[in-house]
Each structure stands twice: as structure tokens, then as C-alpha cells.
């Protein structure tokens, strides 16, 4: 569908320039950090100029997108729902310029979409929690009550209920992405209410949840990257999201000329999301709280999801 990527002449003359325009500051968000790392690594590996631009706020996104178009970047990668509106405008006005948006879809011929089904991985974490809990109470600390995070909280709850219909799931919201102190207190409270496994879904607040787990002696899990190494005694799982790989691949395909538009949907099946021990090995030894048994059961659930025998609700499509 696209031919702007295959320009052998250009390759000779000048290095390709690729821009990653992030909708926010990278800040505390490992998701953006991974993307940044993926693009940078690909830049090095394939000899292209890559530039990451962080946007300070909503209004800056469009301006940054327009600026990189004007500065003639060959491929522009952006990400997230925040960029949707801006990308729609800019991509429509520049139909010859290839764009990629990670984590959402923009229905335009010159935009390649990459989306994730995080709820599937969250479901697996929930399933493991439901199986492992001794107190029949588990918790999740969520950053904010916004639709997007429902992929994490709803998927998790569904997973718990699937393996342990009687278990109680405590949900609390921090009200901020950057408040580990409050996240920690919320985790302590959930623990005092009987939760022995508390899933962290509060961005940087997760670090607070981990601390609470260490202090109070309950179990927890992290997000996006493998967090188990930080504290194997208490952080027993991690929900994974392969943003870095996606970003890396995008650059790679673009350089190699295999880049195509269209929508790429990553779930358990495509190995775009996952859970430590279940879909990916880790150096950290498995904690006895979870145990081989449970991992095997969760693996079975994973297979069912992959094969389509079991469906996980997409909370955003209700």
C-alpha cells in the first residue's frame, strides 16, 4: 500500500530520519520509556537518525507533529489515544507521509496502527491471583479512574472471578500517576482488609505498592516490564507489554522496506502482551506463593485464550 518507504536512491544520499513523538513526557511511564528505548536501539542497529520528542501537554502534540512533518522526517511514530485527534488532522493533510501510531487506531491509509490487548494479560494475572490467594481476598491499586485503565482493572477482576468466583477483589484509585506515597497507603489498607495479593496498576505508584508488600509481607505484581527482580520475595508476577519490540520492529521494517500500513493487533496470541513465567521466562526463581501448579493452570488458560476458546472482555468495547 505504501511506497514512500522504498526509496533506494534516498538511502544512499542521506540517512533516514525517524521521529518518535510522544504525547506526554516520558516521566514515570515505563510504557513510553520502552518505546523510546526500542526506537533508539533500532536506530543504532540499522543506522538511521532517530529523534524522540516529548510533548508537554495535549496542545503540544499537534504542534510537534506538524513540526516534524515540516522538518521532513521520513517516518513519524507516535503513540496513544491522546495523539489520535492530532494525528488524524496532520495525517490527512499529509497523505504522502507515513505515520505509525502505537496503542490505538487511526483509520487512514497512511497510518499504521499497533494495538495491544492488555486485558488478556491482566486476566492471566487475575487468574493466578485467584488461584493463589489464601485469604480469598485480592486487591488492585489503580492510578486513576479513567477508561483506559479499565483494561487492567476489569481484565484482572475477570481473571480472578474465573478461577475463584468467591474471591473478593478490592479496587482503589490513587487519583494520580505520580503519587507512590498514596499508592502505598492504599496497598497497606487493602492488606489490612485481608488482601494477600495486590496488583499494582498505578504507574509510578507501583513502587509504593512494592514497598508496602515488603513491609507488610504480602504479594504483588508489576507492570509492563519484568519487575520481579526488584524483590523476588514479594513481587511474584509481572504483566508484560512489548512496546519496545513493536517500536523496534516498526523501524526495522521501515528500513528494510517491509513496512506496511494497516492495523496490527497484539495480544497473547501474537506475544505482544504476556505475564512472567506464563508467557516468558525470567531469571527470578518462581515464588512459592504462586508455585508451578498455578503457573501450569494459568498456562492452560492462556492457551484457551490464544485458541479463542476463552474470550476476555474488552472493557472499552462494551
Amino acid at each position, binding site marked *: 500500500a505504501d511506497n514512500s518507504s522504498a526509496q533506494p536512491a534516498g538511502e544512499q544520499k542521506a540517512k533516514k530520519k525517524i521521529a518518535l513523538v510522544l504525547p506526554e513526557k*516520558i516521566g514515570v511511564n515505563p510504557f513510553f520509556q520502552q518505546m523510546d528505548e526500542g526506537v533508539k536501539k533500532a536506530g543504532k542497529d540499522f543506522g538511521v537518525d532517530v529523534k524522540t520528542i516529548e510533548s508537554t501537554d495535549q496542545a503540544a502534540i499537534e504542534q510537534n507533529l506538524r513540526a516534524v512533518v515540516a522538518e521532513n522526517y521520513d517516518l513519524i511514530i507516535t503513540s496513544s489515544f491522546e495523539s489520535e485527534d492530532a494525528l488524524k488532522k496532520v495525517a490527512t493533510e499529509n497523505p504522502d507521509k507515513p505515520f505509525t501510531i502505537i496503542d490505538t487506531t487511526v483509520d487512514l491509509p497512511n497510518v499504521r496502527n499497533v494495538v495491544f490487548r492488555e486485558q488478556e494479560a491482566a486476566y492471566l494475572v487475575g487468574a493466578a491471583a485467584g488461584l493463589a490467594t489464601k485469604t480469598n481476598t485480592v486487591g488492585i491499586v489503580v492510578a486513576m479512574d479513567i477508561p483506559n485503565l479499565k483494561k487492567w482493572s476489569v481484565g484482572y477482576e475477570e481473571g480472578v472471578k474465573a478461577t475463584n468466583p468467591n474471591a473478593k477483589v478490592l479496587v*482503589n*484509585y490513587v487519583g494520580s500517576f*505520580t503519587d*507512590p506515597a*498514596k499508592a502505598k497507603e492504599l496497598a497497606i*489498607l487493602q492488606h489490612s482488609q485481608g488482601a494477600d495479593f495486590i496488583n499494582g496498576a498505578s504507574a509510578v505508584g507501583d*513502587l509504593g505498592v512494592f*514497598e508496602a508488600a515488603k513491609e507488610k509481607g504480602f504479594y504483588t505484581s508489576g507492570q509492563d516490564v519484568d519487575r520481579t527482580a526488584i524483590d523476588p520475595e514479594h513481587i511474584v508476577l509481572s504483566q508484560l507489554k512489548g512496546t519496545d519490540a513493536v517500536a523496534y520492529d516498526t523501524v526495522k521494517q521501515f528500513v528494510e522496506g517491509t513496512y506496511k500500513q494497516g492495523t496490527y493487533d497484539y495480544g497473547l496470541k501474537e506475544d505482544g502482551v504476556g505475564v512472567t513465567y506464563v508467557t516468558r521466562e525470567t531469571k527470578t526463581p518462581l515464588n512459592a506463593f504462586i508455585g508451578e501448579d498455578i503457573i501450569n493452570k494459568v498456562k492452560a488458560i492462556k492457551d484457551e485464550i490464544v485458541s479463542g476458546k476463552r474470550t476476555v472482555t474488552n472493557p472499552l468495547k462494551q
Partner: protein
Amino acid sequence: MEHLFDLSLLNSTIRMVTPILLAALGGSLCARVGLFNVGLEGQILVGAFAAVLGNHMTGSVTLGVLFAIVCVLLFSLLFAYLTINLRANEIVVGIASNFLATGLTTYLLRIVFDVKGAFYDKDMQGLPQWSIPVLKNIPVLGDMISGHSPLVFLAFILVVVLQFFYFRTVTGFRLLATGESLVAAQSMGIKTRRMQYGAVLVCGIFCGLAGAQLSLGQVTMFSEGMTAGRGFIALVAMMLGQSNPLGIMGASLLFGFMDAFSIRLQGLSMPTHFTLMMPYVMTVIAMFFFKDKNLLKGKTGASGSTR
């Protein structure tokens, strides 16, 4: 729900309220000399960062806290110099110094620790958790006040200290007089500038402590923007408490309890947004009962002249 309040919630409330209380006490010093310090948020943030940095460099929590104090002192010196010497508008300086604090801490996080977002070291020691031997055995109270960092206890001691300072000491008297009428105080030979500097700098110390409590007491890490608006809540607590230490403590605790209460309500069917709103709504309602008697005073300030 079985019990909307339980001991662990109260215990957590006291901990959560501490940075707010400390900063509000500091803010009251500034307010008392006629400087409205909206820069508390930034000062706490600098304190939180410096505490972690100091701790990381020296491996000592105590030195970490001291380092936080020193850094915030320097930072508040900027506020003092600009507002007192150069007579810049204190609110502009406050807002800009909040921006500066955000920028500086994220920048230094990158430079010093080479990370973005958050610095977390699982080996770093936070502030110890103390329990006071006799008190901890008292049934309800004991559970509430046990297992807190020394700074939590210090904050509540400072309430009393400040109360005595304001209303019993000579320096406190002069400080309050400076705030009540700068012109009259100057005309009596009070070194008002020194008073103002003192107030701003001590406020810096308090904010340093608040930051240290946040990053070494509550958690043991630093993350960008981890103050999450506490400085502004402190400002509200300070005003609601009418710059009286005991009043400030009351206001902070009120806010803290409402916050705790709202956490409990999250489990119920009320939408999260409304439960998060509760502390603010309740504080507005509280204002109907605790009115600022001096409200009109500022407005009569228009009168009077030396001629």
C-alpha cells in the same frame, strides 16, 4: 461496609497528613510576616529529592534529611531574595519556583541517577519507624500513633513549639507584629526584613522536613511530581487554620480524615470522582464553621497613612 474507619486507616491518616502539616506550618510563618507562599509545593518537591539524593550519597538517613533541609533552605533563599529584596510579587515567584522545582528535580534525576521518572533503590534505607514504649500500649491511641517515622512525631511536636513561639516568645511577638503592620513594626525599629527572611527560611526547613518525610518516611524513593498537590493542600490547611498552629493541625487532620473516609467510600457504589471530591467539599463546608475573623482586616488595610 463493616467499618468505615478502622485503626489502620487512622494510622495511615496520621502518616499521610504529616508532610501537609509540616508544610502548612512553614507556610504559616510566611503568612504571618505578610508573604503568601504558594511555592510550598515546589519546596516540598525539592526536599523530597534532596533527601533521597543525600541518603544515596552518604548512605545515612539522617544526613539525607539534613541535606534536604539545606537544599530547601537554599531554594527558599531565592524566594526570600526575590520577594523581600527585589520586591517581586510573591505569588509570581511562588508559581515560578514551583515550575523551577519540577524542572530541576526531573533534570537532576536524569543527571545524577540517570533515570527518568523515578529513582528507586531497593537497598536504600528509609526513616526508621518508631513506637513510643508506654504510649503504644494504650488501646486505640497506641495503634494510631505507633510505627511512624521520627518526622511524624516531630511534626506534631512542632505544632506545639510553634504555638508557644508565636504567642509566648519575644521573637514570635515581633514576627506577628511585622505581619500585622509592616509599617508600624518598622517605625518601632523592628528589623522587619530580618523577620521576613527568618520566616521564609524556617518555612524552607519545614518544607525540607516535609519532603524528607514524603520520600524517606512514607516511601523510600523519589518520583517526578511525587508531591501530587500536597503543597496546595497545605496552603488550604494553613488558611483554614488561620495560620494558628493548632488550627492548622486541626485543618490538616480534617482533610486527612476526609481523605481516608473517601478511600473507604471507593469500595461503595459512589463514582470515584465523587469520593475523591469529598475532602475538598468537606473543607469548603468546614469553612462555614471556621471563619477567618481577620478576613475584613486585610481589606481595611486600605485605610491609614503616615501623613
